[in-house]
């Protein structure tokens, strides 16, 4: 039995305010009568956009980790750190909690985002035994934790602003900071362009 989704009933919900509209024939997007946003049954080119943004994010993640993200000068002695070496330095200096937080935000979260989005995309292309409901929950979790990776960018920017103490100590941002911020932004956009309803559409298809 085909479940009655909005799409099956010829309706589409505005993704901003939720108001239901009857879909015009030909699939031309309507304007939401309540809030003015474009109304589509599913996000346009969801899979293509998500793939493209995901690949861009992956490509940005490489320079983000290879190049230094921060350059410190303490009493004239210069020191460069990448994201990874920065975490190791924190750990060696006994700041275990911060090292873990930065590790989670800058390494674990981005990698998890990539893996989850790839898994979700592949599960639409090829199908997967995992239940659609679980995949949607995974998607929403990814959507929520994604922006938190930006915390490292703020930390570097703050240290650059704070530690300008002449010859005693100074901090400069490294090239990687732009690549990393761009990576986080692009993967956020990738998650936003993915339409989780496609997961349920796929589940309905494979059961018929």
């Amino acid at each position, binding site marked *: 039995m085909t479940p009655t989704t909005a799409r099956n009933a010829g309706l589409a919900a505005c993704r901003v305010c939720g108001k239901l509209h009857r879909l015009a024939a030909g699939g031309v997007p309507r304007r939401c009568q309540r809030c003015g946003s474009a109304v589509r049954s599913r996000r346009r080119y969801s899979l293509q956009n998500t793939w493209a943004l995901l690949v861009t994010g992956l490509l940005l993640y490489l320079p983000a980790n290879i190049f230094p993200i921060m350059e410190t000068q303490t009493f004239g002695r210069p020191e460069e750190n990448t994201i990874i070496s920065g975490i190791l330095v924190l750990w060696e200096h006994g700041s275990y909690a911060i090292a873990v937080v930065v590790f989670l935000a800058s390494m674990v979260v981005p990698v998890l985002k990539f893996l989850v989005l790839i898994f979700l995309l592949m599960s639409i292309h090829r199908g997967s035994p995992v239940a659609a409901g679980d995949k949607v929950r995974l998607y929403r979790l990814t959507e929520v934790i994604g922006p938190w990776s930006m915390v490292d960018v*703020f930390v570097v920017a703050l240290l650059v602003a704070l530690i300008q103490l002449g010859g005693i100590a100074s901090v400069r941002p490294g090239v990687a900071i732009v690549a990393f911020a761009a990576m986080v932004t692009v993967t956020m956009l990738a998650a936003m362009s993915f339409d989780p309803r496609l997961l349920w559409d796929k589940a309905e298809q494979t059961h018929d």
Partner: protein
Amino acid sequence: MSIGENLERYVACHNCDLLHHRVDLDPGATARCRRCGTRLYGNRAGRINQAFALTLASVLFFLLANAFPFLGVEVQGARQEISALSAAVSLFERDLTGLGLFAMAVIFIFPLIQLAGMLAVLGPLSQGRPGPMARRALRAVSTLAPWNMVGIYLLGVLISLVKISAMANVTLGIAFWAFVALVACNLWAAFLIDRDELWQQLETAA
């Protein structure tokens, strides 16, 4: 299931697209999707006034957070004091203009627009009528929501503080506490408000 003329009586799950009849809920109750359990809408009516008061408080804290000193650092007599936006400004000064603009946007500009938007929505609604710009305002608030990073910035501040306090004296200015209060008020207001309910109220109060 044959759909009647009045589409207002139906709700589609935003995660799985399943259609549901809209039902009246007891205060505090939550309606969930039959298939995937996603929260569809709730009944938090009556919290509009509280949320409006919180939003006003947030505006005050926002102004304080930007008008006063934020953090101060002192090492061996050398002293540096920064404002909440200094992190973004320092990026501009290093020719990282794009990144500086991004930081300004997510820490200052977007949160400001969201506050103004929520005032435009909640203010008139707390008096039982929809404001003239309310729909556009609520739409802007919804679109900007994922790009409001004040909470993430605060975490960045806390991490930076811990990193520095090992080697320097750190002072927390008025703006710092105002910023903490701003983030707290934002969180609290988010708990009180149900965006679906706001949209319903904007439509029925018209």
